[in-house]
């Protein structure tokens, strides 16, 4: 059957197929506190092939990473209450004995370098060093600095018990699409 593209500029069918059967949930759009709560409260329900520990981890990882999209995406959307919030995507997939949780958003190239450095540093540390790093950063954050999301990324790595799998894809001269993926084991022992 010939594909009709006269109604839309893209095929939702193709998009649906791209999000193949391993994808449990996908969302693209603005993220604010209300959307976070609705997705956060329900995202764990799709992870029904696992235990409470993995579900708690999915929720905690979601809360930190989705908040980063909301606060740090350079692609923003003005809501009806006048607030400007970040736009981005999130996906949760199921692959064998683990879930993959991914968030992505457009970032200014000038702003992303320290975040990538932070992720690479987090990935280079073992669990004990990562805990020590979180303690240090929490101390620094208390001295009146605004929350920069620094502890959030450390928390994600500790909760997921997996490295932060980051990817940067240029979209134009000034901006790139930045994504962070983490794996969460279905058989995790730490909650």
């Amino acid at each position, binding site marked *: 059957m010939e594909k009709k593209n006269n109604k839309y500029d893209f095929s939702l069918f193709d998009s649906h197929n791209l999000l193949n059967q391993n994808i449990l949930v996908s969302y693209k759009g603005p993220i604010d*506190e209300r959307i976070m709560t609705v997705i956060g409260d329900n995202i764990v329900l799709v992870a029904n092939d696992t235990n409470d*520990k993995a579900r708690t981890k999915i929720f905690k990882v979601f809360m*930190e990473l989705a908040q980063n999209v909301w606060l740090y995406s350079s692609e923003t959307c003005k809501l009806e209450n006048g607030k400007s919030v970040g736009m981005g995507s999130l996906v949760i997939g199921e692959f064998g004995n683990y879930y993959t949780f991914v968030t992505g958003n457009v970032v200014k190239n000038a702003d992303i370098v320290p975040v990538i450095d932070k992720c690479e540093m987090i990935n280079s540390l073992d669990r004990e060093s990562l805990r020590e790093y979180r303690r240090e950063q*929490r101390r620094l954050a*208390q001295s009146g600095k605004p*929350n920069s999301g620094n502890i*959030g990324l450390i928390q994600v790595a500790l909760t997921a018990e997996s490295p932060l799998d980051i990817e940067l894809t240029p979209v134009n001269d000034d901006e790139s699409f930045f994504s962070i993926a983490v794996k969460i084991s279905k058989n995790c022992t*730490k909650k």
Partner: protein
Amino acid sequence: MDNIHIKGVHEAYFVPTVNFDASTGICELAGESYLEETTKFYQPLFEWIKEYTDTVKGPLIFNFKLSYFNTSSSKCLVDILDMLKNYQKNGGSVTVNWYYDDSDEELEEVEDFTLETGLEINKIPISDED
């Protein structure tokens, strides 16, 4: 001095339940903590602890029963623990109980709170709660 009673809510943000009792020194922080303005929410709690430790100077028993707190809230929890540690250093009686739900990661974080503040925290499984 007044007590603090805040009923926890789970809406767009998650407000923890707070019960600080000046007549007994028993203080409870329970539920979920994810707030629009974290420091603004915790500020009155800091002020209550300061007033209690400056004027009442009685024993303090802190019961933490948090099922979820975000990283921003964790900074304020450390601030509370710092205040309690200072009170203890100056001769105040302080007991901190942390109720946890079968969670190794939460236990690690409580151990980290002790390392960060020097304050001993009793770790109690929720199943043992009477």
